[in-house]
């Protein structure tokens, strides 16, 4: 019997169309632009100005706030301007525009493919370096990794969890990375263990990726602290709290962080980025992106420089714009529809999904029939129909009492609803309002 989390969950069609496609590097186009807000928290502050020449790997912007991250140049070139661009929602956000002139790297970066397994740095300098080289969580939430690695006083980390679940349908970027860079991921895991001072790590992988489970188990066998654990396929197992529960049986208390139960969770993509930062001195300037969907002729996995426009990837994968109805950044469950395809790939983009017109639209909304399927599906043990209703009626005190802020916005409730009710939309708006109310109450 495979492990999984207890409450709720759904099992959408997996549709892993690109699982057998090796990671292909993509050259950046002549002009790229790097958004200044690429991680959770405050936007970074640019340290370059118009006309500056930069090499790949040079720092472009510094994250000054506690929760913020550094941004590096993925290419060598000239800073064209620092101006606004249209983000995925169409709102204007600042970005650094670079004219690409070549692929010259900063001398300090080790570009060889050679595997370096010996960890020289101590824990504190590992965290410092992770911060300097702008590593953020690549699972999608882009939480700065160095903040996660700094365990607050009075708390103790016991267990490192590496998240190789990739429970979103369609996406295969983590899967491919595990197949192609297993030894680097194991070394990255050891680096993270050293930084946290823990002796035990579990790599959680869903059972629909048996090749990755076998390969990582083989490479992990020489390190007694690292264990690879196969998990039952269930969405949203890649959620931090669900994964901790699946692997350890511990439940993170409401409103608290995983460190409360002694766990730290890192994505495999992040683990690989940490390996590259510590052993190769390479900042986070590229990532693996899956381009997939029924609309795309060649679903593929690309190694993409941050700042490359989505349109370049779509062109490479052979999309059919005339048939396309929706382009989504991320997976079908939690991703966000793009307003234009000229937006750049950022650190948090794990995939681009193109849906055909006929699959893009929502079904007709019908009245709630009180079947409580949403209650059974909610992985956080909430009552989505109730939270959606009280948010709709603007009874935010009831929503707060119903623990609306515990919602992880996984969308399981809306997926399972036979009446296609917009439950998550209402809950998301309710969460915003409740957060506003709490903030004004604390002032």
């Amino acid at each position, binding site marked *: 019997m495979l492990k999984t989390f207890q409450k709720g969950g759904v099992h959408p069609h997996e549709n892993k169309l690109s699982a057998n496609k090796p990671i292909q590097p993509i050259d950046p186009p002549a002009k790229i632009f790097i958004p200044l807000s690429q991680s959770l928290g405050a936007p970074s502050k640019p340290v370059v100005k118009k006309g500056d020449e930069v090499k790949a790997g040079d720092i472009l912007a510094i994250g000054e706030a506690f929760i913020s991250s550094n941004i590096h140049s993925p290419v060598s070139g000239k800073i064209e301007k620092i101006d606004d661009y249209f983000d995925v*929602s*169409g709102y*204007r956000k600042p970005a650094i525009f670079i004219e690409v002139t070549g692929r010259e790297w900063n001398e300090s970066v080790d570009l060889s493919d050679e595997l370096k397994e010996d960890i020289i740095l101590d824990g504190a300098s590992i965290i410092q370096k992770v911060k300097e080289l702008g590593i953020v969580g690549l699972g999608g939430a882009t939480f700065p990794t160095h903040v996660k690695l700094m365990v607050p006083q009075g708390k103790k980390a016991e267990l490192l969890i590496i998240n190789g679940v990739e429970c979103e349908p369609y996406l295969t970027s983590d899967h491919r990375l595990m197949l192609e860079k297993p030894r680097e991921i194991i070394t990255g895991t050891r680096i993270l263990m050293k930084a946290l001072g823990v002796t035990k790590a579990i790599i959680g992988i869903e059972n629909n990726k048996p090749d990755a489970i076998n390969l990582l188990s083989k490479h992990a066998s020489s390190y007694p602290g690292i264990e690879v654990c196969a998990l039952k396929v269930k969405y949203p197992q890649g959620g931090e709290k669900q994964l901790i529960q699946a692997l350890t049986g511990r439940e993170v208390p409401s409103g608290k962080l995983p460190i409360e139960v002694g766990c730290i969770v890192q994505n495999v993509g992040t683990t690989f980025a940490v390996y590259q930062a510590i052993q190769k001195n390479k900042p986070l300037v590229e990532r693996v992106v899956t381009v997939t969907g029924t609309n795309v002729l060649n679903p593929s996995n690309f190694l993409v420089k941050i700042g490359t426009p989505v349109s370049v990837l779509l062109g490479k994968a052979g999309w059919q714009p005339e048939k396309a109805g929706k382009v989504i950044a991320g997976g079908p469950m939690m991703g966000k529809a793009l*307003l234009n395809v000229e937006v750049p790939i950022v650190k948090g983009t794990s995939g681009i999904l193109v849906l055909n017109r006929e699959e893009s639209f*929502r079904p007709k909304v019908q009245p709630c029939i009180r079947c409580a399927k949403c209650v059974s599906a909610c992985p956080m043990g909430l009552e989505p129909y109730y939270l959606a209703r009280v948010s709709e009626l603007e009874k935010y005190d009831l929503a707060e009492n119903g623990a609306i802020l515990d919602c992880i916005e996984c969308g399981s409730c809306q997926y399972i609803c036979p009446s296609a009710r*917009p439950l998550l939309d*209402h809950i998301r*708006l309710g969460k915003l309002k409740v957060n506003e109310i709490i903030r004004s109450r604390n002032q």
Partner: protein
Amino acid sequence: MDSSILYSIITLGLIGAGSAAILYWVASKFKVEEDPRIDAVAEALPQANCGGCGYAGCRNFAEAIVKTGSLDNLICPVGGDEVMKRIASILGLEAPAVESMIAVVRCNGSFQNSPSKFQYDGVKSCAFAHITFTGEGGCPYGCLGHGDCERACTFDAIHVNPATGLPEVNDKCTACGACVKACPRNIIEMRPRGKKDRRIYVTCMNKEKGAVARKNCEVACIGCNKCVKECRFDAITLSNNLAYIDPHKCTLCRKCVEVCPTNCILEVNLPPRKRAAQSDSPAEITA
């Protein structure tokens, strides 16, 4: 007469008399002294219970007036001047001058002026659309057209015109402010009705630079400063690439309307111009 009927009449009569005595005693013992003026003031109010004054209902508002004993900052926008005068005479106070207000929609991004570039398939409500994206026209400050204001209005005074996708205010507007609160983009503004119901205002809220604003909408304010220079009464100010006309300084001379290169200044209920040469003046719509 049957004695049993007599007995029951006497018994019931005694119970009734006893209960009456108890009720009388309780009523006088626990009597709540209420200012009779509250009733009088509440009766004078329009009984719309819209909350436009800032209180939950008309009676709460009447209580507040009588309690504070002054009319400073306490205005019934629905009743307006007439009602405030009546209240003032009940309380023996001086009536404050109440300007008659009306809601105006400060966006002209209709389907024609700001064509749809995207198709929104989510919940048909402005609050949801606003947190999801910029709107089908692409303007991050413009009207989303899903009618949150229409649903908030209890006076049947604002309706989204299906031909333009923009809300239009009719004469039933009482300036209660419910639509102003409902709009997630703060497009609706309360402005004085003006003399003879004539108004001039900027129908744009876009704070982006001119070129960017213009890309999404034909009639966006581009912050060119022409109207500010043209105005002889210092009524127009420009901040964040957006012009604003102060209704109290504006003399309705219409010079700004003529110079505006994007026709984003709207005149309402003004008579047609005398000079025939002004053929390119913006089409009048009644807001």
